[in-house]
């Protein structure tokens, strides 16, 4: 097991290097001068620009800039953004926001998705199942933008059930509306997957065996079908979680949640290679770690793929 983990982590290193280098190169190749971006349309004295350029190593060649950024990241010495924000502060501030949002959204998504998916899968072709299929189709077809704007306007501005935006009311109030929207939009996928998985599993031979053993329906469902049907769902949930440090750029922007997504978007606009790479590294690390955890969990759930 330890060997498995180590092997996976070692394999991640070259990928991490390529990811960070690639992202840095992309940002580096973006047209325009990063510092001018910072200044908006206002002329900035040459001396000020030069001083800033030196401070952020923008006068160095590409590879040196990249290595300096990586050094900063690896030594935990994040420095400041072009605008002067302490990056470590920003992370301390923003990671919890993104975590709260994604976890709450995922909780909504999982709860709804699992409940409806399991129910629909068990009562296949029933009323609930058919409605679920229809509703999920519609949900999957609604562009996220529509949903976010509509929800903010209806539930925030008009009905005043939720705060319109921001995080002032803290957790969970401020996060409820965006998390609900993300969760409801996302539940469609999970519910369909769960349902499909159950339908597939119901037909498996071992379910026949279980029935032939004279087990009650409930026991067959919960002890035999569900543990097997959950396996692909675990993978899906893992992928979902692994992507969470990417942040929800659009949701965070519309609901004014100061999370990693907005930070990333801002950094891209300002061409802050260092920040973009730092955030990409974070996203990458969480991707690797969560994937690893999911694989380990999967190994526990499914003895066939145990990693020794």
């Amino acid at each position, binding site marked *: 097991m330890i060997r498995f983990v180590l092997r996976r982590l070692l394999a991640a290193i070259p990928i991490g290097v390529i*990811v960070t280098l690639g*992202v840095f190169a992309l940002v580096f190749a973006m047209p325009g001068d990063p510092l001018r971006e910072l200044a908006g349309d206002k002329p900035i004295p040459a001396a000020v620009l030069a001083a800033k350029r030196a401070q952020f190593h923008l006068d160095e060649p590409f590879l040196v800039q990249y290595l300096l950024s990586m050094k900063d990241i690896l030594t935990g010495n994040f420095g400041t953004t072009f605008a002067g924000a302490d990056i470590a502060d920003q992370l301390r501030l923003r990671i919890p926001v993104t975590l709260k949002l994604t976890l709450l959204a995922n909780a909504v998504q999982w709860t709804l998705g699992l409940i409806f998916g399991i129910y629909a899968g068990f009562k296949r072709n029933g009323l609930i199942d058919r409605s679920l299929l229809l509703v999920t189709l*519609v949900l999957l*077809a609604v562009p996220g933008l529509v949903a976010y*704007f509509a929800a903010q306007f209806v539930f925030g501005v008009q009905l005043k059930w939720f705060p319109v935006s921001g995080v002032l009311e803290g957790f969970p109030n401020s996060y409820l509306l965006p998390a609900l929207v993300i969760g409801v939009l996302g539940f469609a996928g999970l519910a369909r997957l769960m349902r499909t998985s159950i339908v*597939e599993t119901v037909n498996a031979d071992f379910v026949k065996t279980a029935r032939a053993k004279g087990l009650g329906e409930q026991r067959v469902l919960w002890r035999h079908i569900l543990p097997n049907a959950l396996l692909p769902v675990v993978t899906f949930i893992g992928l979902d979680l692994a992507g969470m440090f990417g942040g929800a750029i659009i949701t965070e922007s519309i609901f004014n949640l100061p999370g990693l997504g907005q930070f990333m978007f801002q950094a891209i606009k300002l061409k802050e290679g260092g920040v973009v790479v730092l955030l990409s590294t974070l996203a990458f690390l969480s*991707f690797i770690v969560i994937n690893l955890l999911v694989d380990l969990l999967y190994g526990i759930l499914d003895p066939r793929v145990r990693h020794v």
Partner: protein
Amino acid sequence: MSDVQAVVSAEAQELGDGRTLSNRELLRALLRKPQFVLCSLLLLVFFAMAAVPKVFTSADPRFCELSKSRHSREPGHPFGFDIQGCDYFANVVYGARPSVLVSICASFGVFILAGTFGLLAGYFPGFVDALISRTADVLFAVPGLVVLIVILNSVPNRSIWIIVGVILLIGWPGGMRLMRSTVFSVRNREYVLAARSIGVPPLRILRKHVFPNAMAPLLAMTTLGIGGMVGLEAALTFLGVGLQPPSISWGSQFGVAASYRDTPHLFLWPALFISTMTISFMIIGDSIRDALDPKLLR
């Protein structure tokens, strides 16, 4: 987009060991489903709009009178006017082309790329597999939207082809994984072994034996994913990296109109068209999936 993709791939994965239908059988099975027929007709209408918009409207979408900006409908202008005072119906009709092109080309391109790479990776374990899979890992690990934004911000001219290209770049790994795992299950089947033993060259085996038997799940995933592409295009406009005028597309129409709450017709129509097209694609994807499902064939 990624959500839909993940679900679809997981859903489709179950088909991996399914037996394959002949095309005619598949078509016959599909035509028996009314929802499939209805959605196909709808899509045909959309495709026709994309191909020959003139048939649907005689108005010039680019004839605009600013004084009519955002007016609601009037005789001869069933959808009213857009912000520029152009006939909105004509604009929505003409908007079909980029939307359909982006969604179809991106999906089809992803299908081709993912299919090819998946075939290669699944059939040639070792170096080829490692190369392709590790590349996919890299792309998986970077948030897709970030790559989209960065690249689209960098290119001098955002045409639909650029947008399609970037979607291809970040879209293929998901399908590749699916294809690869399907190929794994097919590559040791008797007919493949037989072909190999009589010395059929590998590429021919891939083309004639492996691909036809392994493509069903990827195909289902692709059809289910097509609709999401239009929504993605709208999101790009919101983020300031969408299509530029004079291109007219549902995504950019919606993206631009989203802020104008007081004239709801501006976003209702494109949103309706986007959703209808998306749902149609999904139902068709569902139908194909069901038709391919061996459990229902018994």
